[in-house]
């Protein structure tokens, strides 16, 4: 029952820390630092500036400033000489294209203004999805610091022609000498590029192609190959699943590219069909946070329990070991069997044997969810070949290395060895979009265009072909990788022509190229084998399990390496949007850290004290794996398995990055064998204190934890939501005239009339929200939200208009009930703490609620914030004088204050401080200046544009035509925006849904944002 839970945000809260309590009462965690100078009497008295001098300065500067202001600047307008037909200044063009950077693959739509891309949105027609990283990729295009601008040789500029000539001669020499050359690329999933590479290697038989993924899923691909004869990743049709059991597979994160859309499609309580999701894992992952049931086990136990599950299902007795969660595994086996072919098992353990067992379980279940036909091509890396390359290069066997968009010097476990081995290689060429340690180690650095400047094609899954088209003229003197290879193969065709003819012969089968280009994708029937299922090969699972058991040798701590939602494999580490993006689980930005369980933290002596300005500190830990030692800050993580620690890859990259982005610790050296699980790890406390930029305890909502409503699928189906005692969505009651009445029957304010015109509502389904944060970055891009940097985030001055609050909850009684039970305060918290070892997690996107009766509006002394009749709470920045009363009066803590000018300010050297980075700004939204309040506007620029479009065309606004940036970025459809006065809009029905509720409804703010009660399928089948 929702009301019986205690919700908490930080471990410290459970310790009854008075600091957290005080913080929860402050809107801004920090006071204006007047004491810094006013408190310092001595300096004040000895200062040579007298009060009169001070007034003189003030007077003079004011006069000078007003004089300077009188003369307006001369603004030049430069029109095109020849205007392109499809560009109208001020009108956005959208292009369908695809992203494939080696780790993130997506069918997307790109919004361009005056010929420059400013936003990336999912191509929903192509079933495309975007993550925070895909959304942020548009900013990486404008990374003038890191992008390669012109071809160079050993740091000296060289022309393309000279580079081609010299490399051509060198390649010929190596060919004649028969010395092997390796072309090292990431996964490209591009059929035309594969063909070009084939032609290149045919023309030069000494060249071999090696695919290298920094974060390896090679084991899954190898296992699939062993069983089905084809090297690819299996697909999962989670939308049809009844029971999903995942053994450490973060499939809402980066496992096989993510399956959040299909997952949420299979979890719609209103249809009565909701899959049950059980997660067995050691780190608290995004997937685990969303699970109906999360079972905590350290990595070795995850592996053994997977074998145990195999035994339980097949009744075989392959080699395994008992684990503490065996009883749970038995229950899981029952549930899986009950679900039969609608059940599926996944594992994220990057070990071929574990993957084989997982496939075998699915075979035993006869799972229809595992899709082997429409398999995925997005992780083709082959870790063994990469390691062989390193050893060959070391021994001087390799004559040349050509890399394309990979950074093995940074991301290989033995990156330093690789860099050393390069000294034995005569031809070293890096083709790359961005500068990196690897590019630096090569002789030739050849710039390639960003995907938004390129032509190309993609083949993510067997049935899904996509096209990549340029959305901007190349910013720098770049040449596409494919063009380069074509040239080196002696061909004179341009890649564009090649691509076109390749598609017409190999892909389109008579369909129109223009149409495919317009759509950005092309669906193709997946060729099925005769009986519809490929015949799996026979593999002795007993043997597989024996090897797996032998290799799983737990002793000491166990380390589970993972990728964070923000940075992934670290390719976009120089992207300030992603660095500032708070991790969905820990809410920390600008860092990676060692996640340690509460029990282990107590034992070793780690803690995360909260400072009185709301920031969190952490102790350092020395982590030793196979002799490699790193020192990382510690984050105590509820839900982390005891005996295990977690550490994110993708951080600690420094080469060429801006100073501000030199954050975190590089975990790749610990990534032995490309395996995300490392045993025999030593964790010791190291000296020093790390300062986190974590929004965990900032902006708490003053203990009003009834902001969340959660129920179970069973209750949802059987209990009346408004039932006075057991209702899971009962209205708030207040005392009026000494009587309990429904809160919405009384009101301080007069009701607005909202029947005429539009009335916007935003509905957020807490059941569908996975906390992925794509909306957070989309909001950044759409609304020119500034990046403030680590220091400012630390003191609670982040500018996110939209944040995703993460609440932990545990099944214990409330304070009142604890009192009734006679538990002392200490006992209650102890009970809580044990529960906290594996809490339930709930995500709640929180932005301005656009209250119809907004507390902020009544306190503004200058009427800078006011209410529109379309339901939007409007903020006139130019009217705001910065009293911050509004923020203090906001119960949702969603107002943000511009403490500084974040644009054109060297103190905030992010994208708004350079000419390239500013190209990403949305010209329809102003960049706010210092001293004004800002907040979510419900994308009024988008609603106004939609209205204007309808007016221009002389028609009504279409059903579901209104969108906000967050709602259009939302992959799972958790956010739905629209006009409630148009009864056909989806949101109109959602506003009346029995799950709909307003947060803190007893305050009678009457928000225009509606939340849908979270439903968990907690009932065991």
């Amino acid at each position: 029952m929702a009301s019986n839970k205690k919700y908490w945000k930080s471990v410290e809260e459970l310790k009854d820390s008075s600091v957290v309590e005080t913080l929860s009462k402050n809107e801004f965690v920090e006071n204006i630092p007047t004491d810094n100078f006013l408190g310092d009497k001595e300096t004040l008295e000895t200062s040579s500036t007298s009060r009169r001098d001070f007034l003189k300065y003030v007077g003079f500067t004011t006069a000078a400033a007003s004089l300077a202001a009188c003369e307006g600047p001369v603004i030049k307008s430069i029109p095109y000489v020849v205007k392109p037909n499809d560009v109208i200044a001020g009108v956005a063009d959208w292009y369908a294209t695809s992203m494939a950077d080696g780790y993130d693959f997506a069918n997307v739509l790109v919004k361009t203004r005056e010929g420059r891309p400013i936003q990336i949105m999912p191509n929903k027609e192509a079933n495309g999805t975007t993550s925070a990283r895909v959304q942020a990729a548009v900013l990486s295009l404008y990374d003038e610091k890191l992008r390669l601008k012109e071809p160079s040789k050993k740091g000296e500029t060289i022309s393309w022609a000279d580079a081609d000539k010299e490399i051509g001669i060198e390649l010929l020499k190596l060919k004649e000498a028969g010395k092997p050359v390796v072309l090292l690329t990431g996964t490209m999933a591009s059929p035309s590029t594969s063909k070009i590479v084939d032609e290149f290697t045919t023309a030069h038989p000494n060249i071999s192609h090696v695919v290298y993924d920094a974060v390896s899923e090679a084991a899954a691909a190898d296992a699939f190959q062993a069983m089905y004869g084809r090297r690819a990743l299996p697909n999962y049709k989670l939308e049809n699943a009844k029971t999903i059991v995942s053994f450490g597979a973060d499939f809402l994160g980066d496992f096989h590219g993510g399956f959040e859309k299909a997952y949420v499609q299979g979890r719609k309580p209103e249809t009565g069909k909701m899959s049950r999701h059980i997660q067995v894992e050691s780190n608290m992952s995004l997937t685990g946070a969303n699970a109906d049931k999360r079972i905590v086990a350290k990595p070795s136990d995850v592996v053994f329990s997977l074998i145990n599950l195999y035994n339980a299902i097949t009744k075989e007795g392959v080699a395994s070991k008992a684990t503490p969660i065996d009883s749970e595994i038995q229950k899981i086996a029952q549930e899986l069997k009950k679900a039969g072919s609608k059940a599926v098992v996944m594992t994220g353990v990057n070990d071929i044997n574990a993957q084989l067992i997982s496939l075998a379980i699915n075979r035993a279940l006869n799972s229809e969810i595992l899709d082997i036909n429409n398999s995925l091509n997005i992780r083709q890396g082959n870790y063994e070949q990469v390691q062989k390359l390193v050893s060959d290069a070391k021994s001087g066997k390799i004559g040349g290395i050509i890399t394309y968009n990979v950074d093995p010097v940074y991301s290989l476990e033995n990156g330093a060895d690789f860099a050393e081995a390069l000294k034995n290689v005569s031809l070293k060429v890096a083709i790359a979009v961005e500068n990196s340690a690897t590019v630096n180690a090569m002789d030739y650095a050849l710039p390639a265009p960003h995907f938004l400047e390129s032509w190309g094609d993609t083949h993510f899954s067997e049935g899904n072909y996509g096209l990549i088209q340029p959305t901007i003229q190349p910013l720098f003197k770049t040449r596409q990788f494919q063009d380069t290879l074509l040239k080196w193969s002696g061909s004179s065709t341009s890649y564009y022509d090649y691509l076109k003819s390749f598609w017409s012969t190999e892909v389109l089968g008579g369909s129109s190229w223009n149409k495919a280009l317009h759509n950005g994708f092309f669906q193709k029937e997946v060729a099925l084998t005769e009986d519809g299922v490929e015949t799996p090969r026979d593999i002795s699972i007993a043997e597989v399990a024996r090897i797996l058991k032998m290799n799983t040798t737990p002793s000491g701590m166990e380390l589970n390496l993972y990728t964070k939602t923000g940075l992934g494999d670290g390719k976009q580490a120089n992207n300030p949007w992603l660095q500032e993006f708070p991790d969905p689980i820990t809410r920390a930005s600008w860092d990676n850290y060692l996640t340690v369980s509460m029990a282990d933290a107590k034992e070793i002596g780690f803690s995360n004290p909260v400072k009185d300005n709301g920031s969190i500190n952490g102790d350092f830990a020395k982590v030793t794996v196979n002799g490699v030692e790193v020192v990382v800050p510690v984050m105590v993580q509820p839900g982390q398995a005891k005996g295990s620690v977690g550490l994110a890859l993708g951080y600690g990259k420094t080469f060429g990055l801006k100073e501000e982005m030199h954050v975190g610790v590089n975990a790749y050296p610990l990534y032995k064998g490309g395996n995300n699980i490392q045993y025999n790890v030593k964790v010791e406390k190291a000296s020093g204190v790390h300062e986190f930029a974590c929004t965990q305890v900032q902006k708490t909502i003053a203990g009003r934890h009834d902001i969340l409503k959660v129920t179970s699928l069973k209750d949802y189906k059987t209990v009346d939501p408004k039932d006075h005692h057991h209702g899971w969505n009962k209205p708030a009651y207040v005392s009026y005239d000494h009587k309990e009445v429904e809160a919405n029957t009384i009101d301080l304010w007069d009701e607005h009339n909202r029947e005429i015109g539009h009335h916007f509502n935003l509905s957020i389904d807490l059941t569908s929200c996975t906390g992925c944060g794509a909306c957070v970055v989309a909001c950044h891009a759409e609304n020119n939200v500034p990046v403030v940097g680590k220091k400012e985030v630390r003191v609670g001055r982040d500018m996110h208009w939209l944040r995703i609050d993460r609440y932990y909850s545990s099944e214990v009684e409330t304070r009142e009930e604890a009192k009734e039970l006679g538990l002392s305060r200490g006992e209650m918290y102890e009970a809580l703490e044990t529960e906290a070892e594996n809490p339930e997690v709930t995500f709640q996107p929180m932005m301005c609620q656009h209250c119809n009766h907004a507390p902020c509006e009544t306190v503004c002394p200058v009427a800078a914030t006011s209410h529109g009749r379309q339901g939007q709470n409007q903020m006139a920045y130019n009217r705001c004088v910065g009293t911050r009363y509004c923020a203090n009066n906001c119960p949702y803590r969603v107002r943000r204050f511009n403490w500084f000018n974040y644009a054109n300010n060297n103190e905030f050297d992010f994208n708004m401080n350079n000419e390239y980075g500013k190209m990403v700004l949305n010209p329809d939204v102003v960049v706010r200046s210092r001293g004004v309040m800002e907040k979510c506007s419900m994308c009024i620029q988008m609603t106004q544009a939609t209205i204007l479009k309808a007016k221009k065309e002389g028609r009504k606004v279409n059903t579901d035509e209104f969108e906000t940036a967050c709602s259009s970025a939302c992959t799972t459809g958790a956010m739905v925006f629209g006009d409630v006065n148009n009864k056909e809009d989806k949101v109109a029905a959602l506003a009346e849904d029995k799950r709909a509720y307003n947060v803190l409804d007893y305050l009678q703010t009457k928000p225009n944002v509606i939340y849908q009660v979270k439903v968990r399928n907690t009932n065991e089948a």
Partner: protein
Amino acid sequence: MKSVALHSRLTSLFLKGFTLLLFFSFTLSSYSQEVDEVKQKEGRKLFRSLCASCHKLDKKLIGPALGGVEERRENEWLKSWIKNNAEFQKVNAEAAKAAEFHPSAMTAFPQLSDLQIDAILYYTTVGEIKKDPIVAEGGVVTTQTGSAPEWLIYLLAAAIVVAFLMIASLLKQVSELKGNKKPEVQSNLKRDLQELWIGVKNNTFLKVLGTIFLLLVGAYVVFGTLFSVGVDQGYQPIQPIVFSHKIHAGDNKIDCQYCHSSAKHSKHSGIPSVNVCMNCHKNIAEVAENTVVELEDGVVLGKAELDMEIAKVYKAAGWDPEVLEYTGEEKPIKWVRIHNLPDFVYYNHAQHVTVAGIACQTCHGPVQEMEEMYQYSPLTMGWCIDCHRETNVDLKNNDYYEKIHKQLADKYGVEKVTISQLGGLECGKCHY
């Protein structure tokens, strides 16, 4: 009749000789008396509508220059050529040779009668009729220069007067201190003034009144100054090309949105790209003989200067007017933006032009009379709001408003609403 014909033949002979001279000198001068104006006018009209897109009198365009073409070809030859040059080429070797002059084939004009062709040829022979130079018709627009300079002058004058008086009184005192006696006899007026001054000095009420008066005047001046900060009404910067809206939108009646074509689609009205200029200026390399542009500062630009301005357009477009080809050397024009709104204001042209159907002149003033463009309206928020308060929205001719109109009519019996009643005064509609 015979005499007339003879006369005209004589004239024509005379004229032909004269035109030859003209042809070499490439100038077209006047034939005020001897010219058959009716025929010339008809020919000119036909030439303009049918020939001018490819031919000019004095210069090669797509086709050859046609001034005095009758000197080079027989009248009959020309007629056959004009009516159907393709057919004519088949039968006439000379015509086939002539066709090699330019690769693009000329359109056939079988619809033209012999008389019409004669008229055209007459026009090519006599050219333009020169009229007496027109004196610029006082068409200079009186710009509303901001009030600031005027009151500044008054203020300065007042300051000078005050300073003068102060110096005078100082001198007087100095001379008194030196021992010079006060002049015994003063003029009546001076004495009266002095007495008045002493009276005022001794009267507290008048002193207070005076102070209040001075403060009020001071406040008025200060507020006036501060409120005009950032208001650039009348702003008329010097542009890189002397572009006269009067000639284009006024005299030649080119629609505003022919050049500012994005006004109907976009938030920006758009400064036309150079290729739009070239749509016309590919054929118009020079202004008409007597064109005069009188600038604000009294500078008068004649044909020579204005032709140079057109040459600037060619330079920007990379057009070589001699070989009539694009060179590819483009040079974008850096116009000075006149109408500047602050960043925190969102304004959309399409909303006002396409949806509301407001004429450009409503905000931009009599552009068709402006030789040099200037900011006509103050572009202040008060100015916007005033219009939004008063203007009624046309609810009937746009399906978008259909439902709103019905609801309003049902509920309040309202037929007309102003923009502000529809929410047009909300802060968030323009500030985001």
